[in-house]
């Protein structure tokens, strides 16, 4: 039938144009980075099985708590976030759930050589005197790999179970000390509370600005607010960026955070909730609208057939 032929021509040229300006042009514009599935293949494989009791003693004696809080073990932060950032550039993370959020391989390497695991050796080079603010663990006299395995085992034992990690928890602990998410009311100093008085609100903002100043000095610029990142970057981009920022932005100050594949998924879900809050509603309503459109088209077709019966 002639009309179908015409339709085929229209559809062909439409799809050709679409293909050229969308998938093809974007494949030429952006570097393609493959995901490694958060396996951190570049880091040495784990050979030792850790003992959590030994690990607890090691963590106490190694002085981790000098900078890190471990709320789950009843150890509060030695100083508040603003002061910590003034000392270290960024507020050191609480270690309560580190065992659940970060890959064991990554934690093991991080404890021994932070700049290496974080992939920021271009910024922190011990040889030229620029030390990473986190002091490496040089061992307590025994087999350092065994000691590190013990420490990791301890962190895993106190952390919440992997299935209990919520999107907010994953984001706030792994990303939220550098990145704000304004649309979720998240700042680098935590969720901004509701203040009755303007004065208290401004006092909070001033503390936040002080924190951000330290962060800016440490990172080179203020890490961006991620409120809309789920829509301004695609999911694959965010995922591979979290896995290894250097793959997308060579030389960036952002460290590799070393999250597990599950934790990365949670982080992305958090970002999706911020930037694409209504996505579930959109899909549900979309289905209904599609069904209606098809019924509408069928009735229109039947009506046309009836009307045209007299014309031909």
């Amino acid at each position, binding site marked *: 039938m002639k009309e179908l032929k015409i339709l085929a021509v229209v559809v062909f040229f439409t799809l050709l*144009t679409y293909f050229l*300006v969308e998938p093809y*042009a974007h494949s030429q514009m952006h570097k393609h980075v493959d995901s490694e599935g958060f396996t951190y293949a570049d880091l040495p494989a784990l050979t030792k099985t850790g003992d959590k009791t030994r690990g607890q003693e090691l963590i106490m004696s190694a002085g981790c708590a000098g900078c890190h809080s471990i709320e789950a073990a009843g150890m509060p932060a030695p100083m508040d976030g603003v002061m910590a950032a003034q000392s270290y550039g960024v507020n050191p993370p609480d270690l309560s759930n580190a065992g659940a959020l970060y890959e064991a391989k990554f934690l093991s390497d991080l404890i021994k050589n932070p700049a290496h695991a974080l992939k920021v050796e271009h910024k922190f080079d011990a040889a030229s005197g620029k030390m990473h603010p986190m002091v490496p663990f040089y061992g307590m006299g025994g087999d350092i790999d065994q000691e590190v395995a013990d420490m990791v085992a301890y962190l895993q034992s106190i952390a919440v179970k992997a299935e209990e990690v919520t999107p907010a928890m994953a984001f706030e602990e792994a990303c939220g000390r550098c990145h704000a998410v304004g649309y979720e009311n998240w700042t680098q100093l935590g969720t901004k509370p509701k203040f009755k008085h303007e004065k208290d609100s401004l006092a909070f903002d001033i503390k936040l600005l002080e924190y951000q100043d330290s962060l800016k000095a440490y990172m080179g610029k203020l890490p961006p607010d991620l409120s809309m990142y789920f829509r301004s970057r695609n999911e694959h981009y965010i995922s591979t960026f979290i896995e290894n920022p250097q793959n997308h932005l060579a030389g960036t100050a952002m460290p590799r955070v070393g999250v597990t594949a599950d934790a990365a998924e949670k982080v992305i879900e958090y970002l999706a909730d911020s930037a694409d809050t*209504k996505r579930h509603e*959109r899909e549900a309503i979309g289905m209904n609208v599609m069904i209606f459109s098809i019924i*509408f088209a069928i009735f229109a077709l039947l009506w*046309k057939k009836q009307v*045209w019966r007299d014309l031909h």
Partner: protein
Amino acid sequence: MAHFTKATSVKDWLNQRLAVETVEKVMASEYWIPKNINFLWAMGMILAVTFGLLTISGIFLLMYYQPSVDTAFYSVNYTIMREVDFGWLWRHVHGVAASVVFLVIYIHMFTGIYYGSYKKGREMIWISGMLLFVTFSAEAFSGYMLPWGQMSYWAGMVITNIFSLGSLHFDGLVEWIRGDYVPAQAFLNRFFMLHVFLLPLAIMGLIGLHFAALRIPHVNNQDGEEIDFDAEAKKYLAGDTKNSKVMRFANDFLSKDLMVVGLFLIFFFYLVFWHYGFALDPVNFDPADGLKTPAHIYPEWYFLWSYEILRPFPVDIGLVAFGFAQVIFMLLPWLDRSENTVPASRRGKFAIWFWVMLVDMIVLTAMGKLPPEGIFSTIGLVAALLFIAMWIILPFITKNEKKV
């Protein structure tokens, strides 16, 4: 003074004052449409429906949008997308419709070119249609500024800079358009005004003109047949609807119009809910930053072909070529020197011209988006030169066309 009698019904009352029966006849039941037309003749109705969707969704966006450089991005991405119930729906409908409307405009335009529907009394339809294309372009551009994302800002910067006209250095004109040295508050406010008031008003006026221009010459048909509308209408009204070559606009053709609209809406809503990325560019979900240009900036897909005509040349030549591309379509009824009002397939060289022009514009569109490097630059330059050359030879190939 006209003679009024006591009305026998509401319809009679209205009829005496507004001639509703005559209007109904002129606009619908005795508005004769040839039978030998295909679904491409329903593009006008699709455009009207899409314009309606744009207007309705726009009304709801307008109620929450704030035209301020500090709050515009927030009002769109937080208030409308997260807070307002169904706000996301209006934005998706508006964004997708703004993009799809150009696809349909291009189909509508190329249909007109293919069937020669700009000749022999139909020149005003073509001209008013091209004016609509220009105002729709301005409407799309001004609307693109409003979310005040990175693409809004940098498109605003680049497009307004075109008005410095290269070596003429009309920098004062650029600043006048912006109301500032860079796109800022005054710029956003005035483009907001253009987008929600002046341009829609112009579009509505032009749509009226476009419809009016069609009424007397009637629509063309797919066989290039000259139809005696009066004779055929008489046949139809006498009851011989099967043998008449014409049909009523309503409900005869309208039912087909709406059938095509129904099929179009399935496609449209699929895009709205699942495949909107082409119309709501991800880069524009980054807030405007006057100190950082995105790695890749490109116009929306429907401006790419004319953008590519600007791009491969040195600035002054590029501007001349760009200006040429903007006005040349308007002159089509006079550049086509042939008397034949028949489909391109029966017009020899013109058929080749048509398909080459279509493919060339698609090539230009693709090259306009691809990074201007290596082979893409060369293809872009060749396609731009071909575009210009094609228009220059058009009068020559059509002048000697054989009469069919």
